[in-house]
């Protein structure tokens, strides 16, 4: 699918004059927050639904772009039943007490192959700075230069112990790799 998309991150780095900051809304049914961590020699993978996303993208002045996302922890799914239960249970994300995870960008800057998004990730009520790598694509089926429907891919990693999510540390790795695919539509 990526082959069919034009990498709009080029726009970010080439400084092409485009429209002023534009507000986008999430297409939740086409968006996923994927995660992966180590489980012995295997991997646990899963997804978490996005419950809210506020996105302002400024292709002229990248630093003016803002991303704010809430994730529904209780709706998390994992590659097998016990992993999903453990993930949402009190020893890891504690969905009953902290039903939402959130990310709020603090700085967005263009880099050679896309953008770097710095922000604050809040898990279990604990806020920590994180840096995600971003790529932006035009969605399949839309013409060149049409920025009305975009796909943002954010990738990064966090150590769950930084957020107090220390359960099953003897079995499950500390580093959680995030791969967020958000499909967004411009509010005209």
């Amino acid at each position, binding site marked *: 699918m990526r082959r069919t998309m034009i990498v709009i991150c080029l726009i970010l780095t080439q400084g092409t004059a485009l429209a002023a900051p534009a507000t986008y809304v999430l297409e939740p049914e086409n968006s996923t927050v994927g995660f992966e961590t180590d*489980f*012995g020699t295997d991997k646990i993978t899963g997804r978490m639904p996005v419950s809210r996303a506020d996105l302002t993208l400024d292709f002229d002045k990248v630093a003016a772009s803002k991303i704010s996302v809430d994730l529904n922890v209780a709706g998390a799914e994992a590659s097998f039943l016990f992993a999903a239960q*453990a993930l949402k*249970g009190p020893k890891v994300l504690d969905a009953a007490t902290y039903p939402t995870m959130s990310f709020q960008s603090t700085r967005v800057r263009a880099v050679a192959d896309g953008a770097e998004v710095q922000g604050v990730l809040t898990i279990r009520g604990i806020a920590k700075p994180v840096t995600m790598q971003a790529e932006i694509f035009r969605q399949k089926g839309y013409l060149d230069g049409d920025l009305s429907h975009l796909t943002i891919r954010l990738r990064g990693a966090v150590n769950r112990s930084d957020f107090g999510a220390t359960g099953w540390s003897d*079995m499950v790795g500390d580093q959680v790799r995030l791969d967020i695919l958000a499909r967004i539509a411009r509010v005209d």
Partner: protein
Amino acid sequence: MVWRNSATGYGAISRILHWSMMVLIVGMLILGTKIADMQPSLANLYLYGVHKTAGFGVLLLTLIRVVWHRISPPPPPIGVPRALTNRLARLVHGLIYLCLIAIPISGWIASSATGLDVLLFDRIPLPAIAPVSEMWERGGFLAHGLLTKALMALLAAHILGAMLRGIKQDGTTERMIGG
């Protein structure tokens, strides 16, 4: 075939319960020891389910055996009832029964306290019997491990006693095998 126990011998039901439980318990001790030492992965995760299912089976068979012995009391021990060996045997048997009830229940408590479902045959959920709590989890698993070690010692004493009676050929071993 005589199903019920008599004044001098064990009926088929008691013998089937005894030997089937022996196989299950020995299997569980081997499996439990393996699980305690293994690095979990997707390839061996099913062993936890097998352990929980078989553990519940041990609990169920023990309760059935206790009830059955109320319905059809086992024969008294061979020899003088108040002899030291018979009193020791009665004590060991009683403690084994206690362990066979307490070990699965402590495992059930500890598993419930982790917040994960306790599933039989990977499908049938058992109700949680403890709050989701690290204290209950640690206490439950500690008791589970200590009681299992106690059971191993009691089973060793039980087997030693059975072997001594076998050497003496007093008929105890024969009536548990052939009735």
